[in-house]
């Protein structure tokens, strides 16, 4: 197997708040190999976005990375100088944001914003060369009439076009790793498929690896090679998409799979995971999922000790004391 492009080891991120310390991410392990698409799923607040932002070193104050290592091409990103980190951002690792309306400056023409992304990492490039590059990028993401679109403001773009422009911006410097944080959540359902297709083709053309953050299992099944399921700031199950989706070995993943609405299910038959996500201020003792877990019952280890990831197949791990019962 290839050397991982990105290795996240035991990452912990805390946010001090008035009510106490929020452990947004608490011991995340994640590998991304070159060219691979890793889907990260989980409920809101499970730490998906915070993990992604940590990779870019963009945790907002007063949040702080308190533990762990993020190795990218052998360098620990957490120890890089601000200057060295800026050289990585946008050039080797690029991000596609969730809402292209807010991620683009409303008073700057779209073309100029993409040009800025190009120029940040290619200082020597002349005006005309930058412009040509932007036009080529716009064309490559399927924005019709790039010449005219170059001068337009974000509000003159439709939602789908804006996200295309964002993807063009992310691909501007042919990054080795693309992080897409819920890239289709803010879009119409009809546009989602187009944007996913584009994301897939853009990624395949450049051979970039990707971290795809979403709460949409369908998107994961569609695009990802591997999946990491997050819950309460940790990865609870990870493995090949088919292996995990066909035979989930963590009760939370099971719950997620079961709660997907299906065509054949009749109205009113939606299955929900009982309870609500745990407070990250005072996470439950032991396994954070045990209060909502259908198999934990009153069993001792679930309440007292936090399960460590255990291997249940090739590259398939799960953090559950009783994963054998789910086999």
């Amino acid at each position, binding site marked *: 197997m290839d050397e991982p492009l990105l290795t996240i080891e035991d990452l912990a991120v805390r946010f001090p708040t008035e009510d106490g310390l929020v452990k947004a991410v608490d011991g995340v392990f994640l590998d991304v190999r070159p060219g691979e698409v890793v889907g990260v799923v989980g409920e809101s607040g499970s730490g998906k976005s915070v993990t992604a932002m940590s990779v*870019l070193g*963009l945790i907002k*104050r007063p949040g702080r990375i308190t533990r762990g290592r993020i190795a990218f091409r052998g360098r620990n990103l957490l120890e890089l100088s601000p200057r060295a980190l*800026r*050289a*990585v*951002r*946008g*050039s080797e690792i*690029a*991000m596609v*944001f969730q*809402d292209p*309306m*807010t*991620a*683009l*400056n*409303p*008073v*700057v023409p779209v073309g100029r914003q993409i040009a*800025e*992304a190009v120029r*940040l*990492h290619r200082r020597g490039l002349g005006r005309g060369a930058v412009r040509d590059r932007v036009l080529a990028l716009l064309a490559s993401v399927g924005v019709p009439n790039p010449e005219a679109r170059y001068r337009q*403001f974000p*509000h*003159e773009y*439709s*939602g789908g076009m804006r996200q295309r422009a964002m993807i063009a*911006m992310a691909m*501007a410097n042919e990054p080795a790793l693309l992080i897409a944080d819920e890239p289709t959540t803010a879009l119409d359902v009809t546009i989602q498929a187009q944007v996913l297709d584009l994301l897939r083709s853009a990624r395949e053309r450049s051979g970039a690896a990707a971290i795809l953050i979403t709460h949409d299992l369908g998107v994961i099944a569609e695009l990802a090679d591997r999946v990491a399921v997050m819950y309460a700031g940790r990865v609870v199950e990870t493995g090949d998409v088919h292996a995990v989706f066909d035979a989930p070995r963590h009760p939370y993943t099971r719950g997620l799979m079961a709660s997907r609405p299906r065509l054949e299910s009749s109205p009113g038959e939606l299955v929900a995971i009982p309870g609500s996500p745990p407070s990250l201020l005072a996470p439950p003792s032991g396994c954070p999922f045990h209060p909502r877990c259908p198999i934990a019952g009153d069993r001792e280890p679930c309440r007292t000790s936090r399960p460590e990831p255990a291997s249940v197949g090739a590259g398939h791990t799960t953090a559950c004391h009783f994963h054998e019962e789910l086999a």
Partner: protein
Amino acid sequence: MTTVHSPRVSRRSPARLALRRFLRNRMAVAGAVFLVLVVLLAACAPLIASHDPNAVDLAAFRRPPSGEHLLGTDSSGRDVFARLVYAGRVSLLVGLASALAAVIIGTLLGAVAGVVGGVTDTLIMRAADVVLSFPALVVVVVLAGILGPSAPMLVVVFAACNWPTACRVVRGLALGLREQEYVQASRAFGASRASIIARHIVPAVLAQVAVVGTLLVAQTILLEAVLSFLGLGVQAPQASWGNMLTDAQNLTLIRSMPWLWLPPGLAIALTVLAVNFVGDGLRDAVDPRGAR
């Protein structure tokens, strides 16, 4: 945000929309026209004034307005009209230069304070507080004593005293802009703080800064007049609207020779009024929510 504008409306840039709103404000347009006239008069002073503003003619002493001297002559027999237009140069220049300098310093410091935050922010804003707690008048009196009163000295002092106004406005806006997702996105693409300030913060605050700057111009013209009137600003024989009024400290003169003090007094009042109208017009144009 939605995209339900008609294509025609959506094609207008924010700047053009602001210009339209400004042009709809009659007072602001009148103020702008008046200012353009004053600036033209001052700029073309040598062409307009038929007399040397500093030529002393003791034979023609406090003459009332006539064909020879449009606004009469002053206590040294100098042509008041010539002095008025030349004084306009000094007063406008001091006002503009010091407001511009104050706004540039204030914008940069405010943007840095807002974007960088932390200790830097605290230092800059406490410095601004200190400056604001100093009465400009006292500073000028002291500096005039040390450096000698002059127009450049006024510019420096006014700029040094007025930058906190712009700084506070810009910092406030920068704090909000910093949290915008497009600024985060820009950082994610590898932009440094300096380039974020240059590309996202400064352009976004320019409109508000223009408003602050305009109002500062009015304030500075007034302050310059006060100081020159007191003899601490622009020095004789160079004319400024303020020091032209010095001649009018005498009750008899005020009563019997209005051509000595009315023209510079009116020039100051009308110019300041016009600048304020323009400033208010800009404010409404820049912030559509504030306008009717």
